């Protein structure tokens, strides 16, 4: 099983879409809310060089935004 972290905000539709995709494919993940979790926010910006959500960390591979082809490739779906 891949180790997956989703950095998201509760009001972000694309984050919802990413989580729906993972749920539909029965992939487990850790969801960090960067709106309230300051440490997670800093970690996300540092890891990804991005100031926007969603960001995913899949075993060290960073995926920016809702990128379905990339997710399928990394998760071998």
């Amino acid at each position, binding site marked *: 099983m891949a180790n997956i972290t989703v950095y998201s*905000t509760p009001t*972000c*539709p694309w984050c919802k*879409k990413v989580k729906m995709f993972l749920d539909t494919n029965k992939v487990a993940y850790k969801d960090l809310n*960067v709106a309230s979790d300051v440490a997670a*926010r800093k970690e996300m910006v540092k890891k990804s060089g991005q*100031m*926007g959500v969603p960001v995913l960390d899949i075993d060290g591979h960073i995926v920016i935004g809702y990128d379905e082809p990339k997710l399928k490739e990394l998760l071998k779906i």
Partner: protein
Amino acid sequence: MYDLIIIGGGPAGLTAAVYAARKLIKTLLISQDLGGQVNETLRIENYMGYQFVEGPELIEKFNKQVTQYPLEQKVGSKVSSVSRLDCHFEVKTESGETFQSKAVILATGKRSRSLNVPGEAEYRGKGVSYCAICDAPVFTGMKVAVIGGGNSALEASYDLIKMAEHVYIVSLTPLTGDPITINRIKDARNLTILLEHQVEKIEGDKFVEAVHIKNIKTGERKRLEVAGIFVEIGLVPNSEPVKEIAALNQWGEVKVSTTCETGVPGLFAAGDVTDTPEKQIVIAAGEGAKAALQADRYIRNLGG
């Protein structure tokens, strides 16, 4: 050769797909993504049948309804041009594929307008954002600029004044948003409103550090130190693929008749990309249905 190619997978295109499939016409749906602008909202309260539904959820339902029919879909492809040859159409994608059909429905909707200034593309996601509801919290405690003066700019500012250190609204025109929205923000202590200012460039290092603006009346230039720039300057229609063959209005929307005809026989258009008044999901869906029924009639009249 397909009977019909539907371009666009938003409410208009997906509804057209269901109607076309039920008419048993050989159809191909080509779209960059599934859902279009509906993916950009978590609060829909005016689509019939749902008191409340989130955009991604509504689109999943739409897509389930589409995929119960045997219909070809190419999602992830961008159409670059539609041309009319003799009695059929040729649809080209950016990746170089071509498809032919007897009729076409253009349902490509709208996209956020960009500023078209140096630094904008480079710093996209690195301080430049087109989704305030998504990214606002990432800028907690920082200085930000919101570009635009309409409702979406004012709503973004309303969210941002609660978390940012300072918010600048930079607008080319006086504020055009609803007075009630203006009243909600205008007394905020961490807000500066700069009217009749134009954005000239965005600069930074790894992330955005400043935006350069110019007063269009006096010519005076300013540099605002900000970490975030929220671009909220409206939408533009994705009518580029048909701009050589169909008539567009002054905003670039495809002109259509009440039956979704464009004036080019066999080319129909539906939803936000057209000059049909009011841009709403229920309207785009209704127009998509109408376009598919008209296209079916057109294809049957061709015979063969």
